[in-house]
C-alpha cells in the first residue's frame, strides 16, 4: 500500500520542479480536463441504449457510410502516395529544369481547402464550364457532348482530394529522402547500378515511417472532410453525423456515428504508431544526398511529372477561383460580405491567440514540472487534431447541453445558450481541434532554443513568470508568430465544426463559400474561397522556409 502511495506521489510530484511550479501544473491539469471532456463524453455516450434514429442508421446507412469512407480513404491514399512520393523522390534526388521552384510550389496545394478545390473542379468539369466550352468552340457542340462525362461521382471526388492532399505525403517523404546518407546511395549504386532498385530497396523502405505519418494525415483529412463529400453527394461518416443532427435531430445518433469514426481514427492512429516503432536508425551523420543532374529527354519528363500535380492541385483551381472571384466580386461584396470577412478574421484571430497562449502555458508548465502528468497533459490536449471536426463539434454540443441543464437547474440561466450556438463554444471547439498545430512545433522549439537561457535566468534568481515573459517568449517570438499563423489558417479553412456550432445567422468565409456552392452558385462562392486561399499561402510559404532552414 505504502509502495503504491509512493509510486503515485512520484508520478504527481515534480522531479525537478519546486513548490513554485506546482500551481502551474494544477492549472494545466484543470485546463487539460476541460479540453478533454467533450472527447470523453463522446466515448461515454456509446454505452447508452441506441435511439430509433440510430437503429435506422445502423440498419440502412452505416454500411454505405463505411464503404464510401473506406473507398475514399483507399483511393485518395493511393493517389497521394503515388504523387507525393514520386515528386518527393524526383525533387530530392535529381536536378532538372524547374526543380528549384517546384520544390516549394508543390507545397502550395496545402493552402487550398479540399472543399474549395472540389467546387472549383465541379465548375471546371461541368458542361457549361471552361473545359467543355473550349472543346465546344474547337470541335463543336457535338464533340463536347460526346466527350462529356458526369464528374459528380465518388471517383472524381477521390482524385480531387488526392490532388489537394498529396503535399501531406510529399513534405515528409522529401525530408526523409534528403536526410538519407549519401554514402548509402553510393554503396547501393556501387553494388547495383539500377536507380529503380535503389529506390525500391533502399530509399523507399527507409522513408516508409515518414511516408506513413503523412498518409495518416491524409486519411484524417479525408475522414474530416464535409464540404467536398457533401457537394459531390457522397455519404460518409461526416455527412452521416450532420444528417443525424440536422435532419433527424438526434444527438445520440450523431454521437454514436462520431464514436464509430473515432474508433476508425483510433485504429489508424495505433497502426501509425506501430509503424513508427519500426523506424530504423538510418545513417544521417555524414554527407546528405544532393540532387544529381539528369541529362537528355529524361530531365524534361521529370519536369513534366512534377509540374502536373502543381498545375492540377493548385494553379488550375486557383486560376478558376481568381477568374470567378473577379467576375462576381461586385455582386457578392457588400456590407454583409465584409461582416463575413470580419467574422472570419475575428474568429481565426481570437482562436489563434487563445491557442498560442494556452500552448505556451502548457509547454512551460511541462518544462518546469517535468512530471509524467505534465507531459501527459500536453499529449492529451494535442489529441483533438487527430479527430474529425464533426466529432469534436458533437462532443462540445453534449458538454454544452449538460452545462446548460446544470446552470438552469441551479437557476443561473434560463434557456440561454452558453456553449452551443455561441462564439465562445465555437472557439472552445477550435481550441480542442487545433491545439496540436501550435503545441507540437512550439514544444520542439522550446526544447531547442530555451533550455540554456532558461537555466541562466533561473540561476540568476529569476522566477518562472519573469523567466517566461522576459526570456522564453522573446526568444521564441518567431516560432510563436509562425504557430499563430498556422492556427489562423486552419481556423479560416475549418468547415464542418463551424457549420455545426456557429451561432444562428453567423457566417464565416468558409460557410459562405459552402452556402453558395450548395445553392449551385459556384462562381459566387469564389470571392470567399479566394480570400481563404490567399490567407493560406502565407503560412504555407512559412512552412517551406522553416523546412529549408533545417
Amino acid at each position: 500500500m505504502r509502495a503504491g502511495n509512493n509510486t503515485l506521489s512520484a508520478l504527481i510530484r515534480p522531479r525537478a520542479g519546486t513548490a513554485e511550479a506546482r500551481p502551474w501544473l494544477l492549472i494545466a491539469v484543470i485546463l487539460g480536463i476541460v479540453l478533454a471532456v467533450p472527447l470523453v463524453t463522446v466515448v461515454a455516450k456509446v454505452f447508452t441504449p441506441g435511439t430509433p434514429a440510430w437503429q435506422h442508421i445502423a440498419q440502412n446507412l452505416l454500411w454505405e457510410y463505411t464503404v464510401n469512407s473506406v473507398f475514399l480513404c483507399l483511393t485518395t491514399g493511393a493517389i497521394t502516395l503515388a504523387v507525393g512520393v514520386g515528386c518527393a523522390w524526383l525533387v530530392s534526388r535529381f536536378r532538372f529544369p524547374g526543380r528549384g521552384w517546384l520544390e516549394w510550389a508543390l507545397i502550395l496545394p496545402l493552402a487550398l481547402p479540399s472543399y474549395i478545390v472540389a467546387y472549383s473542379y465541379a465548375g471546371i468539369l461541368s458542361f457549361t464550364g471552361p473545359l467543355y466550352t473550349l472543346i465546344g468552340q474547337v470541335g463543336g457542340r457535338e464533340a463536347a457532348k460526346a466527350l462529356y462525362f458526369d464528374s459528380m461521382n465518388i471517383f472524381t471526388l477521390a482524385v480531387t482530394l488526392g490532388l489537394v492532399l498529396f503535399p501531406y505525403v510529399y513534405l515528409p517523404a522529401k525530408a526523409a529522402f534528403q536526410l538519407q546518407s549519401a554514402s548509402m546511395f553510393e554503396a547501393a549504386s556501387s553494388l547495383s547500378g539500377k536507380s529503380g532498385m535503389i529506390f525500391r530497396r533502399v530509399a523507399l523502405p527507409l522513408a516508409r515511417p515518414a511516408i506513413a505519418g503523412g498518409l495518416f494525415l491524409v486519411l484524417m483529412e479525408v475522414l474530416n472532410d464535409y464540404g467536398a463529400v457533401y457537394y459531390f453527394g457522397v455519404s460518409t461518416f461526416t455527412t452521416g453525423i450532420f444528417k443525424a443532427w440536422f435532419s433527424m435531430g438526434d444527438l445520440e445518433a450523431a454521437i454514436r456515428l462520431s464514436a464509430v469514426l473515432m474508433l476508425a481514427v483510433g485504429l489508424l492512429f495505433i497502426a501509425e504508431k506501430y509503424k513508427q516503432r519500426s523506424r530504423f536508425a538510418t545513417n544521417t551523420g555524414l554527407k546528405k544526398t544532393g540532387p544529381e543532374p539528369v541529362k537528355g529527354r529524361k530531365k524534361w519528363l521529370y519536369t513534366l511529372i512534377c509540374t502536373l500535380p502543381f498545375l492540377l492541385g493548385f494553379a488550375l483551381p486557383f486560376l478558376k477561383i481568381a477568374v470567378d472571384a473577379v467576375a462576381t466580386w461586385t455582386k457578392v461584396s457588400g456590407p454583409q460580405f465584409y461582416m463575413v470577412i470580419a467574422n472570419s478574421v475575428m474568429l481565426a484571430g481570437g482562436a489563434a491567440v487563445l491557442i498560442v497562449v494556452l500552448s505556451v502555458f502548457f509547454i512551460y508548465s511541462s518544462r518546469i514540472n517535468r512530471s509524467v502528468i505534465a507531459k501527459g497533459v500536453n499529449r492529451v490536449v494535442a489529441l483533438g487534431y487527430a479527430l474529425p471536426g464533426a466529432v469534436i463539434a458533437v462532443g462540445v454540443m453534449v458538454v454544452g447541453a449538460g452545462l446548460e441543464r446544470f446552470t438552469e437547474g441551479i437557476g443561473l440561466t434560463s434557456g440561454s445558450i452558453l456553449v452551443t450556438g455561441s462564439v465562445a463554444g465555437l472557439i472552445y471547439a477550435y481550441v480542442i481541434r487545433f491545439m496540436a498545430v501550435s503545441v507540437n512545433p512550439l514544444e520542439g522549439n522550446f526544447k531547442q532554443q530555451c533550455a540554456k537561457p532558461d537555466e541562466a535566468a533561473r540561476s540568476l534568481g529569476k522566477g518562472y513568470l519573469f523567466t517566461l515573459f522576459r526570456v522564453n517568449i522573446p526568444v521564441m517570438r518567431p516560432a510563436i508568430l509562425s504557430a499563430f499563423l498556422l492556427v489562423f489558417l486552419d481556423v479560416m479553412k475549418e468547415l464542418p465544426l463551424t457549420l455545426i456550432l456557429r451561432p444562428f445567422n453567423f457566417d464565416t468565409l468558409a460557410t459562405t463559400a459552402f452556402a453558395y456552392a450548395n445553392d449551385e452558385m459556384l462562381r459566387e462562392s469564389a470571392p470567399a474561397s479566394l480570400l481563404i486561399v490567399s490567407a493560406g499561402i502565407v503560412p504555407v510559404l512559412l512552412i517551406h522556409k522553416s523546412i529549408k532552414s533545417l
Partner: protein
Amino acid sequence: MNPALEISNISKSYPGKDNPAVYGANLTLYKGKTLGLIGESGCGKTTLLRIIAGFEVPETGTVKVDGRTVTSPEIFVPPAERNVGMIFQDLALFPHLTVRENILFGVKEKDPAARDRITERMVTLTNLSGLENRRPGALSGGQQQRLALARAMAVSPQLLLLDEPFSNLDVALRQQVRGQVGDLLKAAQTSAVLVTHDIDDAVALCDTVAVMKDGKVLQAACFEVLYDNPSDEYVARLTGSVADLTAPITGNHTPDDRGERCLIRPERIRFRGADPRLRAAVIERNFAGDAFMYRMKSGEAEFRLRTAELLQEESEVNLFFDEKDLFVFGKEGRKSKPDAVANATIPPSV
C-alpha cells in the same frame, strides 16, 4: 600480369575552390596488395578514392582496374560495372535489411543455392555466423565493420576501396577490427586501397603507402622507405617522430629564402661516442611514457627532442649522429646537406 590498379595523371578540381582537390596523381597497385592513401583532412585522398570508385569524374587522367580502362577522357564506366567494392566511412549499411540481405544486395546470382553458398562463405570469412537474420542495428561496432566488408566482398570485387573505415571506432575496438580486416584481406587475397589519416592503420594494413598533401601525391613507397628516406618534410613528420635541428645546424630560427629544414629521427641520435656533432644544454625534461620530452638549447638555438635516454636537467650533453641520417629539405625537395652551417661544433663534413 596486369596491376590491380593503375592511376595516371589524375587531376580534379571543384568549382569555387582555388586549388585542385587532386593534381597529377600517379599510382600503381599490384594484385593482392594493399595501398594506403594517407594525409590530413582535405588533402584529396577521399576524392582520389571516389574517382577510382566512379563517384567522381576527373578532368584529366586515366584509371585502369585490372588492365581495363574505367575512367579516361573518353571512357567512363559506372560504379556498379567497375567490379570495385567500397567500404564507406559511415559503413552505409542498409539498416532495414538483415545481415544476409545486406551481403546479397549486390550479388547478381539468382540461384537460391548459390546465394546461400555466398552468404555462408561471407559470414564464415567475416565471423558473422549465426547473425544472418539480425539487422545492422543489433550488431556491435566490430560486427558492423565486418558486415560492411562482407557486403563489399560478396560481389568478388577485383579491387576493394576502404574510406576511413575505422574512424568511428574507439581506440580499443579500432586495433582489434584493424587486425581482423588485415587478416581478411590477406585470406581473400583481395587488392585494396585504404584511405586513412591514421599512420597506424597504414602501417598495419598497407604494403605501399602514398602520402598526399594539397592534392598531390608527395611520395609512394613501402613504409620503411617513407620512414628512412622521406622525400619531403611533411612525409618525414607524418611517418614518425623527428627532432628539428634546423636552428642549431644552420643558425636560421625560421626558414630563410632557401627554406632549409634539418630533421633527424630521435633514435638516430646517440649521446656517447667520438666527434660530437652538437653540444646542447638540457633546459627542461618531461616524462612522456615510453620516452622523455626534452627542451634543449645549442648556442642560441632551441630545439625539442624525444628520446628514451635519461638526461639531467641543466646538464650539458654531446649529440652524435651520422651525416646520412640527417634529412635536409630545401625548397626544391630533399638535399644531401644544408647550404649554411652556423654552429662551430658541427664538423666541416656536415
